[in-house]
């Protein structure tokens, strides 16, 4: 990542935080202690997959957009 983009991405996170709904309104199903939803989705370069396909490993799951 270029140096130029680091402030942009940092700002991205801060602005995203500003515009986020208050924590109480955050998705109820994504709180610690709950099983992650067994949602089947298309993958970027291949067949449909679910996060459940990765059971047995510790995962860092990043929900993101390029903007």
């Amino acid at each position: 990542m270029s140096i130029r983009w680091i402030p942009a991405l940092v700002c991205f996170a801060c602005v995203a935080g500003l515009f986020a709904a208050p924590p109480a309104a955050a998705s109820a199903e994504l709180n610690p202690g709950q099983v992650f939803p067994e949602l089947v989705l298309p993958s970027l370069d291949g067949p449909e997959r679910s996060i459940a396909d990765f059971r047995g490993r510790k995962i860092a799951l990043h929900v993101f957009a390029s903007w």
Partner: protein
Amino acid sequence: MPGWHAATQRFEQDGRLLNVGILQEQHPDRARLFLQWQGIDWPILVDSLNRLDVNVVPITLLIDENGVIRHRVSGRDDFVASVESFLAEPTGDVPAAAPAPDLALDDRIGRAAFELGVFYRMRYDAQGDPADFESAVEAWGRAVEADPNQYIWRRRIQQYGPRLEKPYPFYDWVPVARAEIEARGETPAKLRVEPEGAEIAMPARRFDAAAPTQGEPDPLGKVHRDAGDLVQVHSTVVPYAVAAGKTARVHLEFRPANEDAHWNNEAGGMTLWIDAPEGWGVDRQRVERANPPQPVSDESRRIEFEVQSPNDTEGVVQLPTYALYYVCLGEAGACLYRRQDIPVLINVEP
């Protein structure tokens, strides 16, 4: 998310951690370019419809071997320390399945409208009918009306909306990414639809009133009219209904009306004139659009501009505009210079 990539790599290399992404974006091809640029090769699931039902990005979750969410890492947390501590934890118990949430009717309507908008926009990208783009904007407008706090839904409209509504630009990173990928000797991933107009416009702090420009191109109305037989025009206003005193972005899409008609690029560019009614602001009154390099072409062309409605207006307001362009008919057919009057209808809410 991207800033954490380097931080997670060492955990990944020793096999203790797997990074996975879920993409909340209309255009997966743009994400592919972004990931190539950032050197990210995680498995990526595409959730354009937001079936995950998140209302913010980015979100980072640490999930254990049983699929149980153990931590939600916020931007304020020390990410590396959070992962270190997570990796040291023993696998916990699996909780009983939580019952599915009982959705209120407004939530159901909002979600259905959002998904409908995504499908319309997908069909627009595949087939190019501008009415589908307008339907997408309308559906997303209904979704945000049902839940004004749904940030992911709101972002879809902002993507095409006025600059004042944007917290930050969407796809201005694309040229930077391409240049850096090429400098590495790689070929940048191709995009299905090139971001343009609102998608690459920088946010504005205040409405930019029209700068002095050249005068009106056809003040006496002498140029012969095209009633839409040669070129079809479709206007989409974002947002679908604009509040009084607020700004909207108008997208005009021009397409040759039949197989015979095509653009004559050698003769000159396209000009749009916007005749804002009393009390209305417009960011550009006269817009000049350059032609592609080839002598003839038949692509769809877009011109965007922004308007600001007066405080004391409501109902449907007609904004008179007209376009001037060079168009030809058939291989050896006549080439014409034509004017098309385009009344843009803007729906103003009190």
